[in-house]
């Protein structure tokens, strides 16, 4: 066992950083779409909207109950076989679809819990001044629920960033895919993957800082 090839590692950093934007694009797009979907699911569940509620329950059950990798393969390899129009789905699209649906299922549950946790006096006050249910949700309930749900949602976002590494199994050359290729070429597996690991780690640490900043901001209304 030789010592680490530090020069190789230093040289690899800018190469791998070049693939970080794609990783962040996958996670960022996935997160935004998953949040929108999760909010819709949560509202459907809280208001118990008939039919949609049952469909949502099945959806959440499936996407929480099966591995993300299986879902990605289903979207990428499986769907085009059923629907020929979907053969145009590329790896990036399939990854975003998978991340969105997988994480929206988890996030819907934590948003739902946060919504249910908003004090009844808040919803009664909103109704008492004549708000519609929609206005009440948008202006009073969701902003308050966001504060409660934020730490968990940020955890899912962090998880999602790391989960983008599965995209390499669909042939997407993002951070993980690029590392894999570099390592296969140089046979310096340890060096290559430790550089990739550190890049993921730093990105996640920066997000933790962002989370802290957001929490302070959202707690402003609640401190004396």
């Amino acid at each position: 066992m030789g010592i680490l090839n530090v020069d190789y590692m230093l040289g690899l950093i800018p190469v791998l950083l070049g693939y970080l934007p794609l990783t962040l694009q996958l996670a960022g797009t996935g997160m935004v779409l998953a949040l929108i979907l999760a909010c819709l699911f949560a509202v459907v569940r809280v208001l118990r909207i008939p039919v949609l509620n049952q469909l949502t329950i099945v959806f959440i059950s499936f996407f929480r109950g099966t591995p993300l990798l299986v879902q990605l393969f289903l979207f990428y390899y499986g769907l085009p076989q059923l629907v020929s129009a979907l053969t145009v789905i590329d790896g990036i699209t399939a990854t975003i679809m998978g991340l969105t649906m997988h994480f929206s299922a988890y996030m819907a549950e934590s948003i739902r819990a946060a919504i249910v946790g908003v004090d009844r006096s808040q919803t009664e006050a909103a109704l008492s001044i004549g708000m519609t249910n929609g206005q009440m949700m948008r202006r009073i309930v969701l902003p308050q629920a966001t504060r409660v749900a934020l730490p968990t949602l940020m955890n899912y976002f962090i998880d999602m960033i790391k989960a983008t590494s599965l995209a390499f199994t669909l042939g997407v050359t993002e951070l993980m895919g690029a590392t894999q290729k570099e390592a296969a070429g140089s046979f310096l597996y340890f060096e290559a993957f430790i550089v990739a690991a550190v890049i993921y780690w730093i990105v996640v640490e920066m997000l933790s800082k962002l989370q802290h900043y957001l929490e302070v901001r959202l707690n402003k209304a609640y401190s004396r």
Partner: protein
Amino acid sequence: MIKLESLSKQFGDTVVLDGIDLAIEKGEIVVIIGPSGTGKSTLLRCINFLEQPTAGTMTVGDLTVDVNRASRAEILSMRRRTAFVFQNYALFANKTALQNIAERLLVVDKWPKEKAYKRAREILQQIGLADKADAYPAAMSGGQQQRVGIGRAMATGAEVILFDEPTSSLDPEWVEEVLGLMKQLASERQTMMVVTHEMSFARDVADRVIFIDGGRIVEQGPPSEIFYHPQDPRTKDFLKKILATNPV
């Protein structure tokens, strides 16, 4: 201008309101008293449709609804004609004092921002909290929160403000400032229905005192009659008990 006819409310098998008939004039100050658990709060909550009444009809201003057949739009319209002041203040925790008051104008009445905040500032001035415009509820005392709660109700421009034990959650030191604001509103002839145990407020401010027991109106009249010449034995009994601990 407010008329309730045989208004009833049941929770399961329990009858909480048993056919309330009541008419209230514009500008009238009505105080509702009675033992706890007899439907006083439920009556106010039904008028604001925070509870769905079981039967009866309700008129506020020019809108009359059969509570059983009230559509969503009618319920919304009823709510917008009535304003509610909660025992626990129930200010929007994510909004400042100013935003709490402006919320109705912005969201329901769709006023432009500038106009809504101008009106909200006027109200803050009236309730003596102009300096608290940007304070969040968590940073205000109970008395200040309840005054904002009243300000929020004032902003609705509703035909009647319903006060559900507005001072019961307050530390004693804050009770007077809230009652003072309510007296100020009463002197401006704001129509009010007040459920309270503050007997001196009832005696000094009310045009009419209503005694409710068992979900029914037992006795009503001007405070001088109810407090000094009650007719029904239940009224006498209640007053004897409450005045012993809470003299007027």
